[in-house]
């Protein structure tokens, strides 16, 4: 038996950052008599949906006094009892860090512009969300939302011309015309081009590996999904000027001719 060489240079793991979707619990009121019964009622209604789901606790809507009144240990315990897996706290004051860590939760910095799906109709503005939460204490104190759940789609009706750049930083990008050579279209989500794609298209620029590019006529200078790219020269004859869907598959770009029975896979 060979002795195990612990100084081996071959890495056996990789550490990588990743953008992912997670349920966020936005707490707006920390009064235990109010919070826990509502939490149990709301999550109890859809226990199977929330079963074993990781959840992030967001405190950006609670002032420091309210945060001090919150028992993180008890909150985490309650969430676990309800079938959720609390993973961390976001937007808490610095003085709460120790108590958060003691409760076995991670720490995340607050984010400023986040889109949320709220349950109450009077809270539609996401940018002023925390402000409104303070102004409407009578509304539901708990808001569960999925980050990126409501991403806006940008629709462009005119041709995107050489030198122009169209950017959809939140969601999908739909172009009802052509993207000409020398133009660039970028989106956090999918890109649809209902015309010829002759310029550059980059989908999933924040790392969304499920993003796709659709084009009625693909002759792109460059296509990229979540950082994986291909230039025109490396596109196969079978997909050039065809209607295609481009997605990420096994770490490479996969081209599928759409609108016809033939399927071309290009890696």
């Amino acid at each position, binding site marked *: 038996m060979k002795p195990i060489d612990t100084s081996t240079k071959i890495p056996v793991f990789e550490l990588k950052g990743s953008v992912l979707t997670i349920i966020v619990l936005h707490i707006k009121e920390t009064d235990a008599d109010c919070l826990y019964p509502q939490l149990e009622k709301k999550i109890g209604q859809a226990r199977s949906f929330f079963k074993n789901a990781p959840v992030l606790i967001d405190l950006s809507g609670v002032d420091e006094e309210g945060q001090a009144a919150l028992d993180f240990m008890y909150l985490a315990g309650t969430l676990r009892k309800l079938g959720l897996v609390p993973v961390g706290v976001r937007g808490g004051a610095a003085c709460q860090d120790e108590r958060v860590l003691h409760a076995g939760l991670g720490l995340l910095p607050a984010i400023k512009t986040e889109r949320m799906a709220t349950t109450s109709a009077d809270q539609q503005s996401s940018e002023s969300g925390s402000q409104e939460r303070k102004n409407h204490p009578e509304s539901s104190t708990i808001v569960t939302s999925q980050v990126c759940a409501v991403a806006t789609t940008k629709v462009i009706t005119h041709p995107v*011309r050489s*030198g122009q750049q169209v950017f959809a930083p939140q969601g999908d990008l739909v172009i009802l015309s052509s993207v*000409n*050579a*020398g133009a660039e279209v970028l989106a956090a989500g999918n890109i649809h081009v209902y015309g*010829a794609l002759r310029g550059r298209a980059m989908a999933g620029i924040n790392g969304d590996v499920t993003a796709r590019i659709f084009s009625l006529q693909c002759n792109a200078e460059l296509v990229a999904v979540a950082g994986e790219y291909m230039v025109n020269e490396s596109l196969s004859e079978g997909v050039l000027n065809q209607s295609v869907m481009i997605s990420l598959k096994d770490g490479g770009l996969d081209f599928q001719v759409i609108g016809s029975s033939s399927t071309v896979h290009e890696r």
Partner: protein
Amino acid sequence: MNKEIFPRKEEQTSAKVVVVTSGKGGVGKTTTSAAFAAGLAVRGYKTVVIDFDVGLRNLDLIMGCERRVVYDLLNVIHGEGSLNQALIKDKRVGNLFILPASQTRDKDALSMEGVGEVISTLQQSFDYIICDSPAGIEKGAMTAMYFADEALVVTNPEVSSVRDSDRIIGMLASKTRRAEQDLPPVKEHLVITRYDPIRVNKGDMLSADDVQEILAISFLGVVPESKSVLAASNAGIPVTLTPESDAGEAYFDMVDRFLGQDRPFRFMDVPRRSIFSRLFGT
């Protein structure tokens, strides 16, 4: 010119400002400006053509008035001469005027306010103001297009010219007075010059359909590759004023289409060979 600020006439039906632009150089902007302006004048519209190519002035040569230039556009802007002193009346067509560019200055000397004043003054006495843009996307070209109501985008049937035109069309939609003041957008017209149907059929040249598909703006027509263009340029005659010129006829078709008339598209197909050349196989 006097320093009064003339009120801008918004959305008037007369005195349309038309920029002739392309992005790329050498595609025929000046030839088109001269031919189009002369064509409009022949059709009875009082027309002035302004050369914006400060430092590389050519329009006066093409128009054949280079020996009559005293004051130029920059002199007018800087108050060194009056507009009437700078305007040169064409000797062939009564209602055609030329406002030449300065050859000794550079394009940075063009001020947007000054050009705006000149154009609004001209709008009071003319029907059409044709702005001959310099090549490129720098200050001269930007100034020439800024006040435009309509644009003639001059393109050669080859890829680099088409791409540059595409860039210019994008700028017409974003960098002009109409775009900045939220007025109806500049109306763009596609003019394809140096078109040779024989080479298109051979696949050496982009077809008019290809160019239209990429640029997606209204198509005004093609100007055939023609010896008469060079001859007219060297003689200092706008090609629309030379007799029996195919290019001149093509420009007149475009002028008429521009004025709202229906004209069949010509010079787009290979001319039929005569029975003799077919028989004797030239």
